[in-house]
């Protein structure tokens, strides 16, 4: 029982982590809470649904297609709604702009598809594995594997490649990076593209796992993922992974052992308690204030 709940929690948590990575990377570079990120996740889920329903492709092509589509969407959103504001306004204005984009995108999808939930078509036969007494479904295995693969890939890209180095430089000091000849705008676009692609992967997998997608699914998922990013220490990539997994496991455990009607409150209560004890998040660095 406990181990099954743990697997359930890790599955949910890894989707939170995928979305949280987008928040944390964007935040690390431009200090913007990208509120439209939850809606990009929702668009990813719908793009995957469309590919499966219209072309009958298998889950991996649907995943890749949705990721490619959301990369484009993320870059376009950044270009239209955030870039004109950068540098000449307070961070709160950019936040309101992000909220505007979020309302726009979820309404757009509600107009296109209606507000009801859409069921995902059967994309794969559901097998159940037995590891001792623990039951694991094939979908959970796929979610865990794909998330792990994406996170390792991301970590390699950030640590080993040239663009990853540019991203790290920008997150340390964006002005100094520009002076060193880094094309800051391109790095920011790239960050949005990668973050959106990860969110889309999360969206497709959640859609298949829970067998349901709807236009407003992004709001709560976005809030949870943002709290995961904050829990881990916002701006820190490993922090988002740890935060997402922790939040997922705690939420499932809370539902299993405490009460299911308080499901959404549990995650936030834990978050508040952690922040009171550790104000910089689990893996965030304590930055001393500079004058």
């Amino acid at each position, binding site marked *: 029982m406990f181990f099954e709940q743990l697997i359930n929690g890790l599955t949910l948590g890894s989707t939170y982590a995928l979305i949280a990575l987008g928040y944390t990377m964007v935040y690390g570079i431009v200090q913007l809470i990208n509120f439209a990120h939850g809606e990009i996740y929702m668009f990813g889920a719908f793009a995957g649904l469309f590919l499966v329903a219209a072309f009958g492709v298998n889950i991996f092509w649907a995943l890749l297609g949705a990721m490619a589509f959301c990369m484009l969407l993320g870059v376009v959103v950044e270009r239209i709604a955030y870039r004109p*504001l950068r540098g000449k*306004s307070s961070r709160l204005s950019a936040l309101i702009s992000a*909220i505007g984009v979020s*309302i*726009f995108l979820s309404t757009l999808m509600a107009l296109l598809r209606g507000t009801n939930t859409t069921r995902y078509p059967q994309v794969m036969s559901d097998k159940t594995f037995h590891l001792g007494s623990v039951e694991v479904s094939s979908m959970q295995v796929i979610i865990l594997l794909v998330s792990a693969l994406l996170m390792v890939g991301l970590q390699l890209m950030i640590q080993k490649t040239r663009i990853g180095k540019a991203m790290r430089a920008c997150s340390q000091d964006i002005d100094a990076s520009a002076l060193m000849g880094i094309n800051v705008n391109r790095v920011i676009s790239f960050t949005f593209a990668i973050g959106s692609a990860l969110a889309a992967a999360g969206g497709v997998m959640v859609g298949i796992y829970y067998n349901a997608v709807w236009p407003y699914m992004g709001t709560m998922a976005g809030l949870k993922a943002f709290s995961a990013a904050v829990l881990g220490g*916002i701006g820190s990539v490993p922090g988002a992974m740890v935060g997402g997994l922790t939040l997922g496991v705690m939420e499932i455990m809370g539902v299993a052992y405490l009460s299911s009607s308080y499901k959404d409150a549990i995650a936030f*209560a834990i978050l508040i308690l952690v*922040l009171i004890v550790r104000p910089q998040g689990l893996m965030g660095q304590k930055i001393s204030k500079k004058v």
Partner: protein
Amino acid sequence: MDAIISQYIDAYYFRILILIGINIILALGLNLTTGVTGQLSMGHAGFMSLGAYTSAILTVHFAVPFFAALLAGALVAALFGFLLGLPTLRLEGDYLAMVTIGFAEIVRVFFLNFEPGGKAVGFSGIPQVTTFTLVWILVIIVIYLNYKLLNSRTGRAMYAIRENEIAAEASGVNTTQLKVLAFTLGAFLGGLGGGLFAHYMFFIEPGNFGFMKSIELLNMVVLGGMGSIPGTILGSIILTIAPEMLRIVQDYRLLFYGALLVILMIFRPNGLLGDVRFYDIKKRFSRKEVKSCQS
């Protein structure tokens, strides 16, 4: 008074005017916390919800007089504002934003499961005693007190915290105390607005006070201009009327609303009346020959 006014104004516009008044009270509360003191709060609807439910439960279940219930609701909200203000001593910026979001969500889930509040079905049968006159008298009182506060030593110290906390502290401003004060006062006004809202709508449900409501209130403050009383009032008026005006485009209403936010922010990044205070307006009108020379 209400009877006289409602003879001349269409019931629909009358309703919008009352909602504008309630939103001005709510937004001015958030303006104190976020606009003036610079502590990003994204859970103002949580305070509103506390005020609304407390006052409604008192009037319905305990037959407490309306004014006492209204005050009690505001005080309960203020108490929670005080408690939520305490972590701000340690948290900053977006961590604080997350705590306020979490707080509002916990309050919402609590009322979803709260038996005397009707649980998820909603709370109905609240006496409809909020009147146009009452709302606007309160609006005028709240604006006046806000104006007095922001022009006092305390108010200027609050602006100083927003501009530069370290400098403010170095100049002898008790930042801890003022941040908690800003939260408490903001929450008080949130609770007051919530009580008025509950006794006007006579039906409330936890969904009325969700994350989107907090965001809507934040939009009013930021759109109008952070820290500016005239700006916040203008923002409240525009964002209360905008969804009504956009009814002509029907289903596309929220689509336009979202796009409107983006466009306004691109063209007026600091809000419509960013940091315009009553003082500046008065100066401009009273002494026309003196051009404002502030940079």
